[in-house]
């Protein structure tokens, strides 16, 4: 099972890699994002780029966007390009196929975040290091990657449901865009509509906990929901149903 999952994930990576090196379907946009977030943003923010709480918002957001791109392409795209049925006619199990696609998507998101962070960290050090090595505290980095990982895992599971219902990649990505927007807006709207006293309490609690601990707790909740979502997605990804679709 693990070997089969890896075989599928590897294939997804080869496909997306081809798109990136040919600057098709998102290849250019990836370069632009890396250029902006990995180079321009650190140059503007200076050493604050390594410590800013903003990192806990935009890295997970960007990473999950990348995950959603790949998962939509891997499922809705495979159907749109008429390769899914051939894949289903092999000895690979339904579970190995879907796990391979989820794994590829999560790894893609993680690789994107890591690359960006590495480039950004290098830029900050080159520009502002003045001979000393500036680092992101390890606990902070761990909390950041926990949030990124949980978010990607969640989006990958959600992506299976969205993509199974979409006839094309474009349709899947449009639906995804709306869902991600709603997910991002919900906490903001929630905070705005609660009583001012409760708002102050929440902010005070968050401040007391610190962004890292808060992030770890949020990651745990997201990971739990993601696990449920992915188990449901695996159960839903069945040959009989897919061939009829």
């Amino acid at each position, binding site marked *: 099972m693990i070997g089969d999952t890896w075989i599928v994930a*590897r294939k997804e990576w080869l496909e997306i890699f081809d798109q990136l090196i040919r600057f098709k379907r998102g290849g250019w946009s990836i370069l632009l994002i890396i250029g902006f977030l990995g180079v321009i943003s650190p140059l503007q923010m200076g050493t604050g780029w390594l410590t800013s709480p903003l990192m806990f918002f935009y890295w997970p957001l960007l990473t999950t966007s990348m995950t959603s791109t790949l998962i939509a392409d891997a499922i809705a795209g495979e159907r749109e390009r*008429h390769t899914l049925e*051939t*894949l289903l006619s*092999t*000895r690979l199990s339904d579970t190995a196929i879907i796990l391979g696609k989820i794994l590829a998507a999560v790894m893609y998101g993680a690789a994107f975040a890591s690359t960006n962070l590495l480039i950004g960290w290098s830029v900050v050090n080159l520009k502002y290091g003045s001979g000393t090595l500036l680092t992101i505290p390890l606990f902070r980095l761990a909390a950041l990657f926990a949030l990124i990982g949980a978010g990607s895992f969640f989006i990958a599971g959600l992506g299976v449901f969205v993509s199974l219902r979409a006839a094309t990649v474009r349709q899947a990505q449009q639906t995804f865009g709306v869902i991600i927007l709603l997910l991002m807006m919900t906490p903001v709207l929630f905070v705005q509509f609660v009583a001012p006293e409760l708002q102050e309490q929440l902010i005070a609690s968050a401040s007391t906990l610190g962004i890292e601990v808060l992030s770890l707790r949020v990651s745990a909740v997201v990971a739990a929901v993601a696990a449920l979502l992915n188990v449901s997605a695996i159960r839903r990804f069945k*040959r*009989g149903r897919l*061939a*009829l679709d």
Partner: protein
Amino acid sequence: MSAAPAIRVRGLVRDFPKVRALDHLTFDVPAGIVFGFLGPNGAGKTTVIRVLLGLVDPTEGETAVFGLDPRTQGDAVRLQAGALLEHNGVYERLSAQQNLDFFARAWRLPRAARQARVRELLTQFGLWDRRDETVGTWSRGMKQKLAVARAVLHRPPLVFLDEPTAGLDPVASASLRDDLARLAGAEGVTIFLTTHNLSEAERLCGLVGVIRRGRLLDFGTPSDLRSARGAPVVRITGRNLSDTQVAQLRGQPGIDDVALDGRMLVVRLAADGDVAPIVAWLVGEGVAIEEVRRDRATFEDVFLELVAEESPNGAMQGARGAAPQ
């Protein structure tokens, strides 16, 4: 014919919303032959392949592939089968080598065997020199070749090929036919082939089944079908042929149909029809006969006759040939 058929189908029914795609199909395909499944578009050929591969469950009836039930033992069935389905299914963003390498990994071929097999097939299909090109840039025929190579990659004992020569040039088609004949003849592979190319089916297939609207219209060897259904056609060329003679010949015993095409009289004989009395009568009528040619109906004639004669109430009952009871 071996005792255990490679494929066994009994009373197979598959319903989709508002349409019955397969309607009580019953047939056997012996191991080691090329079986041709013929029928017009939408006849149900692809649905049969999907059911046999365990991709779609039947509504009623039983199927077995090498004794395995695709409904409950789909994984084991797919382990023994290669498939080229309705679409070629090649990954257009990958190179030819990456395509085959992915499937070879999926079939768990060891590294050395995988590399050797990929090279062997790409060379055999004339694609080796272009192995690193992205398949999306290829012609339809080249993609089709790659898809056929993928279907036989792991040397399965059963191969499903849905329109394998579609998009291939005549030379490539002939080459593929040779390959398929060799696979069945020398390696004992059972090939389940759907095609619209009737001459291809006649040359290649040991057995054929004709299907329309999910019903089996006939089943047997191509020569059986021609012998049973292919009424002889006589083409008589001459001077002084007229519509009056055509009218007089129509309805005569031994004659199914007559038509005048310029200076050629085309007479479709009944099974017991004889050409000599017709020629003698025409000479008596003052026709100067220049040529008389008697042809057997082509396999295409037989196929067209079959799919045209099906009554709206049901398929031919008790299909002949090897169709089991």
